């Protein structure tokens, strides 16, 4: 395993968006490092810029300042075909209507490696089966993607990302729409993939208590700062008290969750 190798690095970046030809900076001087074998959660209030950060880190949009390095190479210098072999994503948005089976859906993850018509080789098939087994979704492989539950679909989408065989996987709020049991099982799966497969996994979430217990590191976005730390350090630095602008929401370091005053 290549545990410990730096996969993704943000060098003093400013993130934001361009509206009406005007740069709007959401957050600036962000330094982040993501290593293989770690599960990192991005935490922050609604509208603080989590999605902007993820979009910048995945090369969908460029940072206003600074650079994002993927495997020591600027992410903007990758071609989309090349990037697809280094980075895979899992989204929350619902899938367009289709007849795709679970197996076919996971097989789409092999697209960066297949020929122009997308024929699967023996290696592709073994990667797909491996991904299905790792996510424990192999029993669903013959079902249509709309016949399975939200929790199962989320795992299948992770299997698709695994089949894409990339060192870095980025998930956009994977635990929304799920109940507690499925949230926990999903995060456990991500943790397992990080430790056992040496993947570098980055996800955004609103479930702080779960993120504290199951992630290796947290990126906490507040109005003024973006910091990266281990869960323990985050609690000690009392940063969570500044997460929400509402003084009535305070963080209880003993319980590891928020209480309302």
């Amino acid at each position: 395993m290549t545990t410990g190798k730096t996969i993704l690095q943000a060098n003093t970046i400013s993130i934001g968006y361009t509206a009406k030809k005007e740069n709007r900076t959401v957050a600036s001087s962000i330094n982040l490092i993501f290593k293989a074998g770690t599960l990192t959660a991005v935490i922050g209030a609604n509208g603080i810029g989590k999605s902007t950060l993820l979009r910048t880190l995945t090369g969908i949009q460029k940072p206003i300042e600074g650079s994002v390095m993927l495997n020591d190479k600027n992410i903007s210098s990758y071609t989309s075909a090349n990037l697809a072999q280094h980075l895979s994503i899992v989204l929350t948005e619902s899938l367009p209507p289709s007849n795709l089976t679970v197996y076919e859906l996971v097989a789409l993850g092999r697209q960066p490696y297949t020929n122009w018509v997308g024929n699967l080789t023996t290696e592709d098939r073994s990667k797909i089966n491996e991904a299905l087994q790792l996510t424990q979704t192999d029993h669903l492989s013959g079902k249509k993607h709309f016949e399975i539950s939200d929790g199962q679909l989320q795992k299948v989408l992770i299997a698709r990302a695994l089949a894409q065989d990339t060192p870095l996987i980025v998930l956009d709020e994977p635990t929304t729409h799920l109940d507690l049991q499925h949230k926990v099982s999903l995060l456990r799966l991500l943790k397992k993939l990080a430790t056992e497969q040496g993947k570098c996994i980055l996800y955004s979430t609103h479930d702080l208590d779960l993120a504290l217990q199951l992630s290796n590191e947290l990126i906490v976005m507040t109005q003024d700062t973006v910091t990266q730390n281990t869960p323990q350090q985050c609690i000690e630095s009392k940063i969570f008290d500044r997460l929400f602008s509402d003084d009535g929401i305070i963080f209880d370091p003993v319980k590891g969750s928020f209480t309302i005053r």
Partner: protein
Amino acid sequence: MQNNRLHITLFTLLGIALIVLFLANISLGAVKIPLYDVLQSITGGEASKTSWHYIILNYRLPKAITALLAGIGLSIGGLLMQTLFRNPLAGPDVLGLNSGASLGVAFVILASGILPAVLAGVFLSAYGIVLASVAGSFIVLLAILAVAQRLRDTMAILIIGLMFTSFTGAIVGVLTYFSTAEQLQKYTFWALGSLGNLPWNNIVLLTYVVLAGLLMAAVTLKPLDALLLGERYAKSMGINFKRTRFIIILATSLLTGCITAFAGPIAFVGLVVPHMAKLLFKTSSHKILFWATLLIGAVLMLLCDIFTQLPGSSFILPINAITSIIGAPVVIALLLNKRKGIFN
């Protein structure tokens, strides 16, 4: 691999149906020609009557080939549109491509009186009509795409398609006021749609354009599969979305524009056939759907064309009427059988 066996069976059946209907299409009509003579004529021999030989080579065979090409082209266009717009109700006619092509043709036929005679001659040639028609459908498709970029809501795109249809209809209506009775008649006959009466050189042109469109569609088969998960996933899997979208649009406008130019605006085929393929083959893989849609499109069009010639009579119904009569109930049935996989 139960699906594989199903696919092989279906492909075999469709292949047989295609050959049978192609021959039946040539054999049936106002004059019924025995199958033996049909085979003799199209394989280079002589039919037992010279008149039969003449009818087959100069009338029936061109018509059957046009039906084949039109069925294939419109259906593949529909398949491409449905995946690109992530919308089961997308199709060349629903999105207003047919109307765009009609508008182009209307300009050429109806407005030719305003132009000087030399220019009018160029415009009214087969190439002029094809070009105007392709340009018309291309412009409408670009406009729809521009709207689709701004509006994520697929329902809105369909409504915009409807608006285009009535808008172009209105312009054609205005144009008719400024045209002669002769021009009007020519346009009306074109608008009713007919697969027959195409000279061989037009058929050769149509074949080339349909082949070009199919080739372009074939290149996009893999990106189309990725697009089943939506634009963002497709991009993350290394698909060059802009290029793919451009090829799909170009292929669809070429197919729809050219077929509409020669055969008139044919409704429903582009919408219905991809659905039949998806329901029968129970798959979303475009590699299979491409061939399935192609075969079903050809078979359905040949069948519809057989129905246009009422057996034993010399009446020929407009092809557009037949496809609509068959197509509309199929769409309604599809909607009533709402399944999450197709409509959600």
